[in-house]
């Protein structure tokens, strides 16, 4: 028993001796103790610093939270204001006054459009000067979906030079028609209408034409007429091609004095007054200088008939071709003599920069003194916008170079023939404000060559509104 106790005692002592680490029994030096102490102090300071940083971060976070809440409040208020504004706008749009302003629902609408020009001329043998001013408003009145009334006026002021001193003032009713849209294919036009002989007449407003004056052979045709017209267009394909037509009856040209002499033809005489009016030459009006237009009588009882048929074929935007043929025929005097005309027109657009157009005009006039005469002429005009060069230069890009050749023959015996070359430019200040400059070389032969102006330098400012 004692031996067993001794054995267990020794065993326990050996186990304890093995379990207790040796350093537990080692002696800690002062240096080590101080090092540990210093380390502990440093750690304590670091912890303290971290705690301070944490407190500061928490403070910043709290401030940020407050700012975010403030911003959210502001955003909410802004949204509320916007919502209120939208609601107010919608309410305003629903009001009768706003509907009247917006207009689509309104039946009636009155509108003023048109153009204005002034021309500065430099002609050899004359002083340079502003030769012409024109204000040409067009009044449009839409009565409803099917009825439109339109009237165009010309207020003009022209120098009388070289014939006389001073200036002359003119007021002209270019057209005044009632348009009734019978259906998608027929529109009835009644009144004093611009005649669709060719296309120039309907597209020759000052800011549309790229050269200040008209092609000479246009003077062989009447500009407008009083009567009735049916016109419209039939679409040919989904690409925009269409067949266009116009057919009309108007009073037609007349005789100044009731005779059938060649010099008595009055292209503008379409009102039934027999006498007592005067006529004035149009310097910058329709065509040939010396051609007279007046409101003097319709010295015959039979109206003229005419029309145009055209084909417009666009390949894509800015690429299109238009071809047309038109004509008019009817008596022009009490003798029953006929005046008739045929016009072939063409226009081509090759991209946004290139345009070509022209007309061939042939007329036949039965006269008492010269028999059947055949005044005729043609013109062709081209334009090239320098923006087509893609030079990216602002001034250059606003310029369009233009050129025209026009020729007219009065058909008399012997005939006077005139031909003219024109070169110039158009500067586009905007899409509606144009500055044009052109030089014209004119050459005439024949007994009436003297009535034509010589070479001219013309500038024009035009504005479309």
């Amino acid at each position, binding site marked *: 028993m004692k031996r067993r106790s001794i054995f267990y005692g020794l065993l326990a002592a050996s186990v304890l001796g093995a379990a207790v680490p040796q350093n537990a029994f080692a002696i800690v030096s002062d240096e080590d103790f101080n090092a540990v102490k210093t380390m502990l102090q440093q750690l304590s300071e670091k912890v303290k610093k971290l705690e301070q940083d944490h407190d500061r971060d928490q403070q910043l976070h709290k401030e940020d939270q407050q700012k975010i809440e403030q911003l959210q409040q502001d955003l909410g208020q802004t949204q509320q204001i916007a919502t209120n504004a939208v609601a107010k706008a919608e309410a305003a749009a629903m009001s009768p006054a706003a509907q009247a302003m917006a207009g689509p629902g309104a039946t009636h609408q009155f509108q003023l459009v048109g153009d204005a020009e002034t021309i500065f001329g430099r002609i050899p043998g004359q002083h340079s000067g502003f030769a012409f001013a024109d204000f040409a408003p067009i009044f449009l009145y839409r009565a409803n979906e099917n009825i439109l009334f339109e009237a165009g006026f010309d207020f003009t002021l022209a120098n009388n030079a070289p014939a006389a001193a001073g200036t002359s003032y003119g007021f002209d009713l270019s057209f005044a028609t009632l348009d009734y849209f019978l259906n998608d294919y027929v529109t009835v036009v009644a009144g004093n209408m611009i005649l669709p002989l060719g296309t120039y007449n309907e597209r020759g407003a000052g800011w549309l034409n790229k050269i200040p004056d008209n092609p000479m052979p246009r003077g062989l045709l009447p500009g407008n007429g009083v009567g009735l017209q049916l016109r*419209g267009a039939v679409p040919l394909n989904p690409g925009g091609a269409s067949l266009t037509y116009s057919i009309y009856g108007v009073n037609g040209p007349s005789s100044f004095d009731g005779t059938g002499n060649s010099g008595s033809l009055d292209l503008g005489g379409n009102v039934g007054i027999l006498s007592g009016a005067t006529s004035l030459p149009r310097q910058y009006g329709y065509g040939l200088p010396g051609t007279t237009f007046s409101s003097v009588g319709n010295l015959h009882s039979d109206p003229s008939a005419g029309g145009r048929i055209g084909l417009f074929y666009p390949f894509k*935007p800015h690429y299109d071709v238009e071809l047309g043929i038109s004509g008019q025929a009817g008596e022009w005097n009490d003798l029953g003599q006929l005046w008739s005309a045929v016009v072939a027109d063409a226009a081509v657009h090759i991209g946004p920069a290139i345009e070509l157009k022209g007309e061939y005009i042939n007329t036949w006039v039965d006269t008492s003194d010269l028999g059947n005469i055949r005044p005729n002429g043609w013109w062709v005009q081209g334009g090239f916008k320098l923006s087509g060069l893609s030079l990216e230069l602002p001034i250059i890009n606003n310029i369009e170079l233009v050129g025209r050749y026009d020729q007219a023959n009065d058909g008399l015996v012997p005939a006077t023939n005139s031909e003219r070359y024109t070169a110039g430019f158009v500067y586009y200040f905007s899409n509606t404000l144009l500055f044009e400059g052109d030089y014209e070389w004119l050459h005439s032969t024949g007994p009436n060559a003297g009535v034509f102006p010589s070479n001219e330098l013309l500038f024009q400012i035009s504005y479309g509104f």
Partner: protein
Amino acid sequence: MKREQQGLNTTELKLLASKKQNMNQLTSSPNAWLARLGAAAVAAALYATPSCFVQASDTEKPADTKVAQAKTDKKEAVKPKKEEKKKLTGAELYSIHCNRCHPERYPTEWTAAQWKTLMLHMRVRANVPADQAKAISKYLQEEAGN
């Protein structure tokens, strides 16, 4: 349908006879074989087309009807898409027509009501087809200024 079938067959026979006559005339020409082939193709087409109609109407089975209907539906479903694809927008028509005579005006230059009046004016002056004028007018009114 039977009357139409008879009529078509008569026409076919006449056309075939005509073609045959023409073929006889062309026998001696250098392109006789080409002419024969062409005439045969035309005759086959003329024969096949009405026959298809007759068979489809007189002898169609329900299953065939469904297939034919499905084909028709498919054609009709495809056809409008092609037309829609070809149809020009108001903006495109605006570019096509307005540039013919003058620089384009900005849609915001006038109000919707003013554009409506202006497009009536231009429809007359430029002879713009009614449906195209309406499409342009709609575009301009949508883009109009206040």
